[in-house]
């Protein structure tokens, strides 16, 4: 669907960038053998990008939605949807906290074989959670912003978000 608001478009763009990275990670794990993961240059490079995403992007994106958008959804009577999305944020944050040290270690080449196995399993869980979460936001949150934000608020929020 085409989004009218700048905030919706900005969030949608981030979702797609995020999904592309997750897709590359998933494919790299699918290609690499159990023993060869630690020495796979593609995986090591992706682990660096992944750790940056886990460290910076997830928190910034989620904080913005929880601070600026979910309260507006709740005020408009859509609190159950906001709560559902918030619960998914909590689960993704928790998983990100587990994954971050593994991703950092993998990027520096300091992850043991069994660590790679945990990293692989948790990464695939992250893919799964993010895909389902983004599908819900694309369906239920982003189109809703056409109603929740007037043009001026949209402009201000979009500016604040990209400047953050």
């Amino acid at each position, binding site marked *: *669907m*085409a*989004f009218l608001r700048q905030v919706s478009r900005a969030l949608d763009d981030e979702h*797609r960038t995020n*999904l*592309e990275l*997750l*897709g*590359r990670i*998933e*494919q790299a794990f*699918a290609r690499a053998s159990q023993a060869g993961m630690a020495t796979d240059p593609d995986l090591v490079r992706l682990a660096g990008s992944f750790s940056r995403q886990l460290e910076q992007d997830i928190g910034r994106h989620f904080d913005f939605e929880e601070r600026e958008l979910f309260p507006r959804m709740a005020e*408009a*009577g*859509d*609190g*159950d*949807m906001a*709560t*559902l999305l918030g*619960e*998914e944020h909590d*689960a993704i944050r*928790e*998983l990100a906290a587990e994954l971050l040290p593994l991703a950092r270690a993998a990027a520096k080449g300091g992850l043991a074989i069994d660590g790679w196995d945990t990293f692989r*399993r948790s990464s*695939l*869980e992250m*893919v*799964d*959670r993010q*895909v*389902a979460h*983004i*599908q*819900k936001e*694309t*369906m*239920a949150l982003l*189109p*809703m912003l*056409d*109603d929740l934000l007037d043009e001026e608020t949209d402009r201000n929020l979009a500016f604040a978000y990209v400047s953050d």
Partner: protein
Amino acid sequence: MKRHMHTFLSGAKSRLLPASVPFRFFGAACVYHVLAWVALFAGADQFPHFSGGLGWPLAALHLITLGVLTMTAMGASLQLLPVATRQPVFALRAPAVIWWIYTPGVAALALGMGTGQTLLLTGGATSVVAGLAVYGALLAHNLYGARGMPNVIAHGWVALASLAVLLVTALSLAYSYGGVPILTRPLALALHVPFAAYGFMGMLVLGFSCVLVPMFALSPAIDERSVLVSCIFAAIALLGVGVAAFGIAPARLRIAALVVGSVAVVVHLRLMRHALATGLRRSLGGSFMLVRIAWGLLVASLLAALGIVLELPMAGLPTLFGMLLVAGWLLTILVGLLQRILPFLASMHAIPGSRRPPTPSTLTAPRPLAIHFYCHLAALCCLAVATMTDSPNLTRTAAVTGLAGALAFAAFFALVLWRRRHPVAMTPVRTTSVA
């Protein structure tokens, strides 16, 4: 717990229904799916040359159309429409009321058709029509205040208009067995089949596909203008078929309607192909394999319809047309999409208390779905050959194979519900892969 309390507090303005509402429709659809194949087995001797009239083939047909297709469409649309049209659920109790009126009505209607008991048939039909009328009122209310997603809304209005034709003709056909028809039987039949299958169910399927296919494929927004073009062409085709039913240039109008309808289908399929080609999620597993096969069978149903209009000398063509349309296109695409929708919806209604809520892929059950996939396709192939060779034995084979598939699908549904309550450890299924 937080969410459930909030759902309660937010009351009538919520866009999320309690899990029990859509899932009771899906559960009933699974049961009727099984019963449909049983009814087909019972009517295997008549099926290959079936061209209407009471008996188990008619019961099997309606167990699929009303018991599976309409039941699923109601369950899915009652939850999806408020989200897609940015409308709160209008009447929280109405969906449950619909289910209680409609579900036993389908059973009575099918039993009446199968056994030839007209009282049971007319009673069941009245109950089914009443349930669908309430559903139509909910649909109309939702569409009237809808915002956003004009493609779904446009398809919804055409489906609603078709539902009105469907209800009048259904009542007429049912009451004709009781000796009080509203319309002549040929007129009622000529309206009932296209408006029920292509009109009501078809337009709902086409409209929701424009939302669900891009959502599951993670593709960019699809061109809304093309969706509207497809919808307008489909509506014109239905209008043409409707006028032709009254005996006005019937052959020419039906051919014209098929041409216009084919344009609608081509535009729709091009949009769907583009969505799948540009989506970040390329490997969509067996569910979307079924969806793609269903699209092929939609085209095949239009070719069979053309063969009927042109009066091609081919044995069993009307039965083959019905099979391609109902079991081929509509049933196949619904079970395909339902394989994605059920775990997705179940994950939105996770039982509180789990450390992290389950994801859709941990709720799904690949093995029963694989069994269903092969059994469903094998049953369709057997049915197609059975109609062309007038073979009751092959029909029985199809019924047994289809029954095995339906039981596997019911097992999948049961496992989704079980895993929702008893989450398994995270081992994401590979079919969720992106890019």
